[in-house]
């Protein structure tokens, strides 16, 4: 048994010199990592650095090609996720892994339901335990509700509840906060602190650096699959961390230039979808970036879906450049110059089994055509262009998108829609899961688009992003637009006040 001589406590879980390749892609190279009880450990790195792969190696999903996994200091082999679970490791994966047809309670306790005599499931106890978990996280989700139809944020919350329900010795979280707003994050951190005090080891991944500094003690940085450093966070600055991740200095983060707003490009009047949002009116002008803020479930996504034509609206109207859009017809909205970057990249943004090239090409089926037939050359160069512009990290453009890391998938979604050259662009959580470097790049792109006269509606749960980018901030609360705040007056306080319904601006 090998025990580090210089350290006091034994790591509960550790990796020694682990490597993992997918075909020609070397996702992990000789990486080591140690998780100690009572400590929150951060894992940082750019998109595609190998964070999720490392987590899957810890969770028994991937078997490392070489290297060792140590459990309480002793070498161990996980044959599958079940083994890791039995060893007391709970994992929140980057993408929610729920059973859409089952209730939230069943999702959380699947395979571990409380039992009655003869091994029968105690449904009532399961429900009660779920309700207790929800209360602990401070959310109001009905345990009996089926998981299908939950927003991404709610799905993420169910995932967190599931992980907490294990009372695990090791809790691993891959970007649990990417879809959450401030208040839920605060709750989550409260719970994590309690767990830490109870002696659990926590591994935490996030692209929001401030979160890392808030909750973690130590950080391991990965770059291109290799470990750069493993060190205490105390005394480090965000810049230090970014430099380790990116390997160079970064430009300023929110570089929105002031553009003189032009004509009204998108005008939404008294839009209502029964039971979902009511009487929503706003305008977006050329060259303007309008932020749409609100708490999870405020109905922002629903408004965007209705405007784009995915869902039908019950009342009201939508105009683009003064011309009315048809209710429930995304294709005509697209033809009129509207683009929507949806929030759920896996279900809505991408065809996971299709190549990067074809996914980007999907929005250009009308343009990359010659004599009625696909012009493959044009399709490829269009896709390549945008993949490069957005710095998507891939092996071959013909690889399917499900081989990409989460952040790179998000970039493909952006590429797909920017490639249409829209007049009005709606982006729903555009930088969810995107690393700092690329985020700056995305922001620069959005800024440039605005400067070119594109009208942009930006939905984001990342408040600093909204405050940094938006010319105006709209705030939604319980399905209604409750405030419109100009850039000069927009602060965390004013936006949060409107979002929680405490005050009108």
């Amino acid at each position: 048994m090998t025990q580090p001589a210089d350290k006091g406590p034994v790591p509960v879980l550790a990796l020694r010199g682990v490597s993992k390749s997918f075909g020609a892609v070397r996702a992990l190279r000789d990486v080591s990592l140690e998780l100690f009880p009572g400590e929150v450990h951060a894992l940082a790195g750019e998109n595609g650095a190998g964070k999720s792969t490392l987590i899957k190696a810890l969770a028994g999903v991937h078997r490392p090609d070489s290297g060792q996994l140590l459990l309480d200091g002793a070498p161990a082999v996980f044959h599958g996720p079940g083994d890791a679970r039995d060893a007391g490791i709970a994992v929140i994966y980057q993408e929610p892994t729920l059973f859409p047809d089952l209730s939230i309670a069943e999702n959380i306790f699947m395979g571990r339901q409380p039992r009655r005599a003869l091994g029968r499931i105690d449904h009532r106890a399961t429900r009660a335990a779920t309700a207790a978990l929800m209360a602990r996280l401070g959310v109001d989700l009905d345990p009996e509700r089926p998981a299908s139809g939950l927003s991404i944020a709610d799905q993420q919350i169910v995932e967190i509840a599931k992980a907490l329900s294990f009372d695990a010795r090791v809790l691993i979280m891959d970007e649990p906060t990417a879809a959450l707003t401030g208040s839920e994050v605060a709750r989550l951190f409260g719970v994590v602190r309690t767990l830490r005090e109870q002696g659990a080891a926590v591994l935490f991944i996030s692209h929001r650096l401030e979160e890392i500094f808030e909750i973690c003690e130590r950080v391991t940085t990965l770059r291109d699959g290799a470990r750069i450093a493993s060190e205490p966070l105390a005394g480090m600055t965000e810049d230090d961390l970014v430099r380790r991740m990116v390997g160079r200095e970064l430009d300023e983060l929110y570089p929105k230039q002031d553009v003189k707003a032009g004509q009204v490009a998108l005008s939404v009047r008294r839009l209502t979808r029964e039971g979902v949002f009511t009487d929503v009116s706003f305008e977006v002008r050329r060259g303007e970036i309008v932020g749409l803020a609100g708490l999870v479930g405020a109905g922002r996504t629903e408004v965007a879906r209705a405007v784009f034509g995915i869902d039908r609206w019950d009342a009201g109207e939508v105009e683009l450049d003064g011309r009315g859009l048809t209710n429930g017809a995304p294709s005509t909205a697209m033809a009129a110059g509207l683009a929507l970057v949806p929030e759920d990249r896996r279900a809505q943004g991408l065809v996971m089994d299709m190549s990067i090239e074809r996914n980007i090409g999907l929005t250009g089926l009308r343009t990359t055509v010659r004599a009625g037939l696909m012009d493959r050359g044009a399709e490829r160069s269009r896709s390549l262009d945008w993949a490069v512009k957005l710095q998507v990290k891939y092996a071959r453009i013909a690889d399917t998108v499900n081989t990409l890391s989460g952040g790179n998938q998000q970039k493909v979604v952006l590429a797909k829609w920017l490639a249409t050259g829209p007049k009005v662009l709606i982006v729903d959580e555009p930088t969810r899961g995107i690393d700092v470097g690329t985020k700056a790049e995305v922001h620069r792109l959005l800024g440039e688009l605005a400067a070119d006269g594109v009208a942009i509606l930006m939905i984001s749960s990342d408040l600093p992003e909204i405050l940094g980018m938006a010319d105006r901030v709209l705030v939604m609360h319980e399905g209604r637009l409750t405030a419109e705040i100009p850039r000069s007056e927009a602060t965390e306080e004013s936006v949060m006040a409107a979002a929680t319904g405490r005050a009108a601006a």
Partner: protein
Amino acid sequence: MTVTTPHPAATEVPKSSGTRLVDRVFRMRELAILLVFLVMIALTQAGNSEFLSEQGIKDLLLNATILVLVATGQSLVVLTRNVDLSVGSTLGISAFAAGLYLHGGGNPAVAILLAVLLGIGFGLLNGLLVSLGQVPALVVTLGTLYIIRGIDSIWVGSRQITAADLPGGFVDFGSGGLSAVPWLAMIAAVVLVGTAYYLKHFGSGRELYALGSNPEAARLAGIPVRKRILLAYTFCGALAGLAGALYLARFGNVDSGTGNGYELTVVSAVVVGGVVFTGGSGSVYGAALGALLLTSINSVLPALGVSSVWVLAINGVLLILAIAVDRIVALRVADALKKRNARHA
């Protein structure tokens, strides 16, 4: 520019109504089929008072029995996002095996056991091919449909088992019962209720749903995916075998063509019963109701004196109607549920 003012919160809906609604949606689907069924029976009774005589009810139940059994087994497989097309062939071959055994003067209980064991054997084969090979169930079981059918034809040849070859008690058992309730229907009911209870109240039963709902998530949750798929197929095979033995008892007649083309009927019953083909959703009660509905249509039309020429067309239209009604009801309820349940945190 518009200045928006906060409005008082939209209509408050008590939280618990959501819960009950969810439950209701699922029950609703079965209720819709039940409704279609009852309306159909009532109309027929109105047109022909003989229809619901004791003999008439007995016939209805007897007709449904075999399909109910096979559909119950099939729904387990469909719940896991797979399908077993070979059930008709399995039914045929196990019916013949049981008949051959009884022909030699065997014990009926052993014959039934034999049929079930044969069914389990073929179920295992299907399950192993699908779960070990990780290949599309549709192709594999279409393949085993042909293979089992072919083996059956070669083995049976032009032989046939007729009622005269069977012990009298066995054949009487096939058509007898307690007043209007046939023995066979009781067997089917016991199997059905047992399966439904298992699916709702046992861990491995729930895991079948999980597995069909999202296979990848099931794996990550540490569910033994292969074992569960194997279980579903084995159970399905066992029920197809049992159904074969009951077929023998009921019709007293088996040859190499028995059960030919049955897979489409079974699949219709399951689908009409609201078991979703992409897995994870539906119940065996629904499937059983679907089976009852389908077989009853075939009794209703002759009882109303509809010329056989029309039967097939009406059958098809009723089938579509049943699915459509079910779908519309489900949609309506889901819509109501979604609108009310929209969470405004």
